[in-house]
């Protein structure tokens, strides 16, 4: 497994004070918090910083980590030396929350688990599990799933891989891949949650299983943009179509339709196709935004036509600017 340089992750020197480490953590946690940051790798970075802080904030763990030596480089192949932790007692070290969410139990890296994992898990497990007569409802599981706009338009069946942490009898955490086939209901919107009853983590004793919550997120679409149930489309039109009016074909998420555009349509004007967005109560609308596309003047014939227009039309597009 790879060695992790927790000082590098936190951006602090090896001799940083506990206060400096705390300040660095607070700053990085705010920056990379997955609920706050828009950065794609925010969640990963956040977990990394949390793990580093978990070790460095606890003087005992920090001392133990330090004694591995300063010569290790991040990413270097690493195996914990035998009895490296002799004389340390981590189980009482007190682990902060944030990772205790059930779904996040596998959040720490293998590197961390190999050093500090064992004591933590067994300490956390104390008194649970095998004792007779103990029943508890399983915890709920949360996951984000990516779907396409078309799935929301028509409804669909999609398969998702979920990583589910499992704790074995020795207290080791392994992640298991679980594949689910789920009906995506027609009309679902970005950010909505689908609840699958009884598909969360199993309960203890006779306790019921928890529920699985899927948060819906849309893949970016190549031509449409989505806002709630409304869909937006940029539609290029030829100058003569805009000037003279025309009946043209327009793609919609449910298939192409014919649309009339009025004579004198201007660049950027918006047409609403009622009910052509994502279905629902009420259904969303499709907004078509006109963009006038100019034919390139690359041939002599095209150049002549532009010149004719210039001579025939007394047109100053900058008249409104006073020049």
């Amino acid at each position, binding site marked *: 497994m790879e060695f992790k340089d927790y000082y590098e992750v936190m951006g602090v020197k090896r001799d940083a004070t506990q206060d400096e480490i705390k300040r660095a953590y*607070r700053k990085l*946690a*705010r920056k990379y*918090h*997955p*609920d*706050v940051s*828009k950065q794609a790798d925010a969640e990963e970075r*956040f977990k990394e910083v*949390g793990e580093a802080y978990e070790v460095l904030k606890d003087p005992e763990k920090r001392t133990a980590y330090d004694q591995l030596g300063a010569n290790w480089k991040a990413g270097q192949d690493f195996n914990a030396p035998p009895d490296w932790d002799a004389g340390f007692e981590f189980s009482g070290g007190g682990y*902060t*929350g*944030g990772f205790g*969410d*059930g779904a996040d139990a596998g959040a720490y890296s293998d590197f961390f688990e190999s050093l500090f994992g064992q004591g933590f898990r067994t300490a956390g497990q104390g008194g649970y599990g095998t004792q007779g007569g103990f029943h508890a*409802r399983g*915890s*709920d599981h*949360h996951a984000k799933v990516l779907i396409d706009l078309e799935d929301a338009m028509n409804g669909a*069946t999609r398969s998702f891989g979920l990583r589910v942490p499992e704790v074995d009898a020795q207290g080791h955490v392994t992640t*298991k*891949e*679980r*594949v*689910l*086939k*789920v*009906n995506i*209901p027609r009309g*679902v*919107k970005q*950010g*909505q*949650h*689908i*609840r*699958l*009853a009884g*598909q969360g983590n199993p309960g203890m004793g006779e306790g019921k299983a*928890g*529920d*699985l*919550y*899927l*948060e819906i997120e849309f893949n*970016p*679409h*190549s*031509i*449409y*943009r989505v*806002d709630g149930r409304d869909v*937006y489309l*940029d539609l290029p039109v030829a100058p003569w179509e805009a000037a003279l009016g025309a009946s043209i074909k327009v793609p919609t998420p449910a298939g192409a339709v014919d649309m009339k555009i009025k004579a004198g349509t201007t660049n950027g004007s918006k047409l609403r196709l009622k009910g052509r967005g994502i279905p629902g109560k009420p259904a969303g609308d499709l907004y078509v935004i006109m963009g006038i596309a100019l034919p390139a003047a690359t041939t002599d014939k095209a150049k002549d036509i532009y010149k004719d227009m210039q001579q025939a039309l007394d047109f100053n597009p900058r008249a409104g600017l006073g020049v």
Partner: protein
Amino acid sequence: MVTQLTDIMSGIILEEEARLSLRELCDACAVHAEFIIELVDEGVIEPTGFDKSHWCFSGVSLHRIRTAKHLQQDLGINLAGVALALDLIEEVQLLHTQLQRLSGPEHE
């Protein structure tokens, strides 16, 4: 290890169909009822129903409570700060969506 499930599962869309009781919400967010009551007092979530035993929450509350819990645990923010952060995060998201809508997919 991969477990292949062949059954196709159907769920309900929380935001539209679900009305959650205080108990269900506690389970779904893995928090104590006291935390949810504090969030109601802070105005972060608004249940319908005249007293705690009849409180009914919309699915939107679920997302807010989970975010509130994370912000409190991970960043050490008090509830008033959490409430402010939630409002600001939602406003940023709204602006982000509007920006995307206006600027087109190529500017994402």
